[in-house]
């Protein structure tokens, strides 16, 4: 019964990575497809395997790629923190409201997720550009006289990423906080704990798995994000997902793009495994 999905994922999810790995070691070629075969029959009985480390060497010598990797990690990390700061009180508020309010609020969190990401990111262009909604309102209020430059800056990119990934953080965090025994907080306060202390000593540690799961769901995809930096970040927003895209589509350098993908994967796999173990702990705790 599980054989069908198993084989499907093996063929279309695992095997492709092997091919990416293979192509990351091959030479760029002006042909279709634009790479040289790794394994070749030369003459009658000899097989030549050419493993080429140039693509990786290239990535480590050109500061652009290292910069893009580091910048992606920085952007993803800061975005995850911002999502936590905005999302934690929201998840907490939803978990502590009455059952009927809770359903409505959850629906409101989920709803944007069901409408196209591309369209929602596009909406921010209209809000942030020089003669956009935010500038027009601020000028009309007299707060500023010259429009602020917001679009095509790192600020716009952060807004876009936090905005798009916020629901992914709120939902697992809510699922975790919902199971919390709130009497623990009352007990702590009865015993003289101040509300902030009780939060710090009880709620925060107990929601650790929810925080971790939500943060991973933001951090991991955000590192490789393409759409948001491409639309809001401007030409200087150097993110690794965008570098991969440009290598592939603009430069037709498939082996270099593959090498970027492999390095990105090596970077992210520990986080993915961490996420999976957190998930396993969460569902074990639920039972």
């Amino acid at each position, binding site marked *: *019964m*599980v054989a*069908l*999905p*198993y084989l*499907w*994922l093996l063929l*279309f*999810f*695992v095997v*492709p*990575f092997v*091919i*990416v790995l293979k192509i990351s070691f091959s030479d760029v070629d002006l042909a279709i*497809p634009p790479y040289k075969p790794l394994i070749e029959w030369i003459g009658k009985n000899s097989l030549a395997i050419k493993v080429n480390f140039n693509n990786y060497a290239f990535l480590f010598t050109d500061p652009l790629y290292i910069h893009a990797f580091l910048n992606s990690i920085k952007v993803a990390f800061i975005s995850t923190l911002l999502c936590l700061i*905005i999302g934690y*009180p*929201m998840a907490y*508020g*939803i978990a*502590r409201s009455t059952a009927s309010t809770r*359903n409505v609020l959850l*629906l*409101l969190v989920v*709803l*944007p997720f*069901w*409408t*196209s*990401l*591309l*369209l*929602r990111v596009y*909406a921010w262009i*209209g*809000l942030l*550009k020089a*003669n956009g909604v935010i500038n*027009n309102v601020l000028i009309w209020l007299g707060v500023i006289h010259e429009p602020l430059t917001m679009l095509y800056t790192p600020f716009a990119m952060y807004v876009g990423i936090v905005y798009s990934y*916020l*629901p992914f953080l709120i939902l697992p965090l809510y699922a975790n906080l919902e199971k919390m025994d709130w009497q623990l907080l009352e007990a702590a306060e009865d015993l003289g704990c101040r*509300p902030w202390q009780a939060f710090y000593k009880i709620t925060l540690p107990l929601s650790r798995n929810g925080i971790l799961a939500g943060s*991973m769901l933001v951090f*991991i*995809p955000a590192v*490789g994000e*393409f*759409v948001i930096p491409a*639309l809001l970040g401007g030409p200087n927003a150097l993110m690794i*997902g965008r570098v991969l895209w440009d290598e*592939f*589509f603009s430069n037709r350098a498939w082996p270099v793009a*593959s090498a970027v*993908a492999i390095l990105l994967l090596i970077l*992210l796999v520990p986080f*993915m495994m961490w996420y*999976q173990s957190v*998930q396993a702990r969460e569902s074990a705790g*639920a*039972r």
Partner: protein
Amino acid sequence: MNYRRTYFILTCLAFGFAFLYLPILSMVVFSFNASKLVTVWDAAHSPTLKWYYALLNNEEILDAAWISLKVAVTNASGAVILGTLAGFGLARFTQFRGRFTLNAMTTAPLVMPEVITGLSLLLLFVALEQSIGWPAGRGITTMTIAHMTFSMAYVTVVVQSRMATFDSALEEAAMDLGARPLKVFFVITLPIIFPAILSGWLLAFTLSWDDLVISSFTSGPGSSTLPLVVFSKVRLGVSPEINVLATITIGVVTLMIVGVSFWMSRAAKLEKAA
């Protein structure tokens, strides 16, 4: 509960939801704006439906929407079959060879950056074409396969979590009464997890309908989906027609979500009453 804390939480909720809904609201409002300058409200001629007419006469967008619809429906149906089998297997059978691998393979696509999934699937299709001649070129088929691969992971999670909450005693009772495993699955299990399957289908449909990155890698000439067309338009600047498209999408999604959740809460109440 203490008042200061309540106010703090309420303020956070209000700001958070304003943040989530401000962009959506602005698209809806400006879809009725007469000015071509999209974000400058032309009070003299607005509100108007002229961009709605323009969108309905835009062949490029309509063709792309039709392709998107075909891909999304095929994808959702396939992903639901694969995802339900995987979710059922993972939830019911706690010990089988390859369980760990299957679990990892259904979790990883949820967080995998799309550029990696897209690139790897494209390279697979190219390698397959070179060695066995299938698929001949890239287009709707390759795109649908790619979409099914990541959507089925989402369906698996939804089905698996529904399976975790229902009482397996029901299945055991049916088996004790002599029902064969296949009959138990179709008569007992399937109806109970049907809400999860329905949400899984809708989720898979939406993921496919919205996907840009993986589609860019795996589509070919003549198979431009709606996101691909929208992305190329948006890169050239804002366009009033995109606001209309967004408003229609939001309208349909809202009706669908509200409808399904209403139906589900009624079904849950009936289940409790019975």
